[in-house]
Each structure stands twice: as C-alpha cells, then as structure tokens.
C-alpha cells in the first residue's frame, strides 16, 4: 500500500460568469482554483492557509467531489476519483469526510442530533436503527458530548458543542481522510482549543489523515505536519511546518508570517512587518506571469510579470515554492525590509 493517501494533480476549478437574456452563455470564468498539485500521506495533517478567496475551500470541495473540478485529477488510495460516476463514488464517500466551517449553518436545524450524526450510517445502510442509535451514542461520547443527547436539536447546543457534533458526523463511518474547512474560525478562543485538541486526539486514536484549512497561521502551525500556502488559486509554497514557519521562501508567506499577531507584547512590538500594497487581484482576470507580482516586494519586471513560476522543490526536505526570487533568509534584515519596496515603485 502506498504511503500517499491522496494525490492531487493540476486541480482546476473555474466558475463560469454567465450573461444572457433567456439562456445564459459564458463570458468569463472565476479561476477559483487554477492548477494545484500536492499529496497527502497517511496519518499526516496537511495544513492549507491563505486569505479568504484564495480558493482553499473550493479546492477542498473539489477533492470531496462536492463540486466538479474543471480539470486535474484526484487520486484516493491510488484510485482516481475525478471521473467516477455518482454511483461509483458512493463507497468512496465513506472514506472521505468533511468538517465544515460554520457550526450553526452546517447542522440542519430541523433534525435531531441523532439523525444528523447517523445520516451517513443511514445513507450507506450500515446497520439497523438500533445499531445506528448505539453507534451515534458512542460517537457522541467520543467527541465529548453526553450520549443521551442524541434526541436533541442543534439549537440546544453551544457553538463548540455543535462543532463536536460536526466532528462526530464526520467520524461516523470511520473515514480515512477528514477535510477540515476552517473548523474553528467561528468559535470563541477558549472553545477553539477544545476542538483543536479533540481533532488531535482523534487523529491519534483512529489514525486519521487531515487536510486542515484555515486562515489563522497560529492554528495551522499547531495542528499541521506540512503546510501549503495558497494565493489566488495557486499553491505558492508547500513545506513541512517547521521549515515553512522558520524558513519561508515565498515573499507572500513571509508577508503573512510577519503579520501574525503574537500574544507577547515585546515580541509583537519588536516585530517587523512586510507590508503588501493593494488588494488581492480579481480571480476573473488574474495577473500575468506570477500571480503575486502586482503586490510582491521582490517583483522583478520582465521576469515575474511574464513567466509563470512553477511549484518546485527549492530546498531540502521537499520544500516547494513557486517563486522566481525566493527569500534568502528569515527573518529578513531591516535593510532588506527597508528596501522591500518594489523596484518599479520607486
């Protein structure tokens, strides 16, 4: 059995922009995900970070086949799933589960906890009603909820408890892979820790593999083994977490890291930030060449705005980066920061 649980190659998702009087025709495309490749090994946690709109959630949904990717392939346990029919996909649905972002919106308010958690069991016909009930109670216990509460409605639970229900739902059919799409960003700080710990515990107990999507670099660092940074539908950097957090190569990663608030007054105040200019460009009409060049402090005209960089190993340990002029050292020196304005901006 291969070590790679999931292989993603050249994944693309373009949403059509349509226009029309009676019938719609496509006039443009939102390139939400535009060629992402990576692998996830068994038992590891791949963290995915990026600003909102960078395509990380879309990518997750493409992997889950909740939306159809425009191009690219996804292999799960060596089996390509991108071309599978809905029927053939059904058994695979048991292997991959997702924990969704909003614990309020992701639970159907009209359903009891029991049927929410047990839905997967029911759909895949795993047991009688009594067996399902037993399994649901077991799951509730595993995620730290009172098993007697299977009969309650989601609104009777707090946010953290609801997210536990979401985790229990994902665990119900013993999946191999769980994609966590910002599972803690809607939660209070104190509760966020509960869920993060729970996820970690479960991973140890059941040998789960996670793809963990978040915009909070602290959280991603805490939970991930490897981290992928996304920008405008592309993976710009992919490395083990220590490597990535201590030696970022991509200027965008550097800028993100420099902006993370640290609960330590001295460190926070002495820290030097890389400021980026302007807003993220529109994914309908992304910049030519390197997608980041419009905001990059190290932008070299004639290169970065022409050549599209490829995600490639740049250093030891499989540290991949898509940049023509990666950072040489981290943290950057004051001089480098001072000169961090783009050459053409001066």
């Amino acid at each position, binding site marked *: 059995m291969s070590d790679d649980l999931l292989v993603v190659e050249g994944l693309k998702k373009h949403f059509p922009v349509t226009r029309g009087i009676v019938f719609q025709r496509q006039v443009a495309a939102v390139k939400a995900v535009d060629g992402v490749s990576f692998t996830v090994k068994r038992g590891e946690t791949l963290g995915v970070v990026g600003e909102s709109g960078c395509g990380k959630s879309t990518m997750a949904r493409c992997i889950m086949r909740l939306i159809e990717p425009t191009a690219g392939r996804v292999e799960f346990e060596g089996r390509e799933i991108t071309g599978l029919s809905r029927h053939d996909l059904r058994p695979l649905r048991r292997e991959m589960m997702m924990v969704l972002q909003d614990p309020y919106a992701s639970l159907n308010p009209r359903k009891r906890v029991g049927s929410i958690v047990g839905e997967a069991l029911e759909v895949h016909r795993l047991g009688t009603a009594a067996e399902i009930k037993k399994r649901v109670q077991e799951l509730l216990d595993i995620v730290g909820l009172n098993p007697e509460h299977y009969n309650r409605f989601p609104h009777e639970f707090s946010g953290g408890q609801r997210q536990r229900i979401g985790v229990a739902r994902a665990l119900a059919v013993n999946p191999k892979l769980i994609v966590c799409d910002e599972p803690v960003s809607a939660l209070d700080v104190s509760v966020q820790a509960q869920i993060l710990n729970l996820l970690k515990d479960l991973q140890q107990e059941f040998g789960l593999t996670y793809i963990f999507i978040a915009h909070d670099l602290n959280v991603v660092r805490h939970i991930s083994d490897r981290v992928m940074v996304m920008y405008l539908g592309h993976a710009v950097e992919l490395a083990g977490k220590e490597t990535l957090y201590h030696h970022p190569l991509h200027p965008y990663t550097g800028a993100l890291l420099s902006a993370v608030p640290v609960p330590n007054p001295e460190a*926070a105040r002495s820290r030097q930030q890389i400021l980026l200019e302007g807003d993220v460009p529109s994914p309908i009409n992304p910049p030519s060449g390197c997608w980041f060049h419009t905001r990059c402090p190290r932008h070299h005209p004639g290169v970065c705005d022409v050549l599209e960089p490829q995600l490639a190993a740049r250093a030891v340990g499989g540290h991949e980066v898509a940049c023509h002029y990666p950072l040489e050292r981290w943290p950057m020196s004051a001089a480098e920061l001072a000169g961090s304005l783009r050459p053409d901006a001066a």
Partner: protein
Amino acid sequence: MALLDVKDLRTTFRTDDGLVKAVEGVSFSVEPGQTLGIVGESGSGKSVTCLTIMGLNDRRSAVTTGEAFFKGDDLLTMPSSKLRSIRGNEIAMIFQDPMTSLNPVHTIGWQLVEAVHLHQDVSRSQARASALDVLKAVGIPRADQRIDDYPHQFSGGMRQRVMIAMALINNPDLLLADEPTNALDVKPQAQILKLMGTLQKEFGSAIVLITHDLGVVAEIADDVVVMYGAQVVERATVNELFARPSMPYTWGLLGSLPRIDHDVERLAQIPGSPPSLLNPPTGCRFHPRCKYAMSICQSVMPELLAAGGSATHLSRCHLDQATRDAEIKKLESGHFAEVT
C-alpha cells in the same frame, strides 16, 4: 485626570426571555494618548460597554446605571444634544464589520463630509478637502478618485480604513474601536493595526480597543481589561498581564492560543462554554469551568482586587497567591499548556 473614567457601569437589557445583565459593574479609565485593550469572548459584555458609553444602546430595552466621565462630564447623564456634539467629534467609534457599517447608498465622500458638517461649520469644499486629507492619511490609494466611490466598491480592508478615516476626521480625543480587525484577513488586519498605531501617534488620540484576540492586544495596547460574563475579571498593564496573568480564566485564554512562536503538543482548554447572561452562575462567574474552583467560588462573587503586589494589576479570584505564583511560573517556563 483620566480622559475617560468609567465607574461601576451596569447595563441591563429587557428581552422576551427575561433580563439580560450585559454589563455588571465595569470600571476602568483611559489616559490621554494611551491605548486600552478590552479582551473577552463573545457575549462577555465588551461591546455593550462601549456602546453604553457612547449612548448607542437601544433606549427602549436598555437600562444603564453607573458613571462614565469624559473630561470630567458624565456621558451617561448629559443631555442628548451635548452627547451628540461629543459623539463623532471628541469620541469617535469604529465598528467591527466594515461591510455593514458604511451606508451603502452614499459615497464615502458624502459620509465623510457629513461627519465634518455635523461638528464643524465649514464650507463644502473645505469639508471635502479635509475628507480627502484623512483618506490619504489612512492610506487609500488614489484617494482623490476614490472619494466618490460607494462603499461596495472597496475591499474589506479598505472599507475599514474608510471607517477609521471617518472616525479620525474630526480629530477625536478618544477612539473606541470595537473589534476593528475581526472581519479581516491576517494581512489587512495587521495593516489596520499598524495604521491605528501610526495614527494614534499622529493624532494623539486615546484608543479603547475591543477584541477577542490577545495577539492584537499584545500588539498595541498599553493597558488591558479582561472581561468574562459581563464583568471585569482582570485589569493590568499589557506587560503585567502577559508576564503575570493572575487568574485561571486568563491562564486559560493564554494557554488555549496556538502560538506561532512556540510549539505545544496540546493546547490548554477551558472546558464548557461561556455563561448565559440571562441566568448567570452564582458566585464566581467562571467557577463552572474553573479547575481550581473551591466551594467558596460557588457562592461568593470575588471582588476585583489588587494582585501580585502591583497597584495597577487587579483581578477577580478567590485563589491564594501561592497557587497563582506556581501557575505563573509554569507559564513562564513554557509548560503552561500542559498543566491545565
């Protein structure tokens, strides 16, 4: 004299389900040019505190007692016309969600000019000129063109800049910022914080910054107030708070934060959920979630008292000093997380 001195502020809302005591006996003060951070989870009463001071609660359902002296005048009892002349002028406010806090049907220029005209007797062109200045100051690129744009034409970060510009346009002495970065991504968040810091130096305003993010507090606050269950549970200077947090809730908060600067295998976690303000627990509000809870905690509400021998450091806890010191030590050694 403190610029803003809040004493025993209490706000109660009448709701269909009963009385919600959203703020209970909150006191703090802000010195001119200083930054006060108010930290707490959602529902801890930090936003209501701010709105109460500004007199922006719904008058039909909110009852407020206590005092909030601004430059010696009690904001809570002054006539509404006087309060209006202070609002937006001497005290300005920035709200959490820049997406909804700007009126979508007016250009940002219109909204800025309105803010000027409400408090200054200047001509249209002067007002517009100062709007343009302040937009430039908050770093809106091509401000002279974008001044006639509508809010929906700006990104979230830019809108928050506009909000800040609007708050600063009348050169306020005090800026109340209610989770100004909450709705923003990491990058724009850092930019906004930096901007606020820069502007504070430039304009000399005091800032009350409300946030749930200890990182943000560490970044720019001078003093910190930690709120839990509508009460202040700890009050300290920023260094004191992060160096010697003195009650279990603060420990929990600090410990539960995953940190980029050091690794922990397991985060500290505060069990349970924040209390309901409709029917809060007796005694110490935190006791149902506190692993140090003693029997006294269930019945007697601790006072906000000086902790750790510093006059500026107050906390609300029955724990003895020895236990606290032990815990703080663990925190310093970086093993804080594991113990809880």
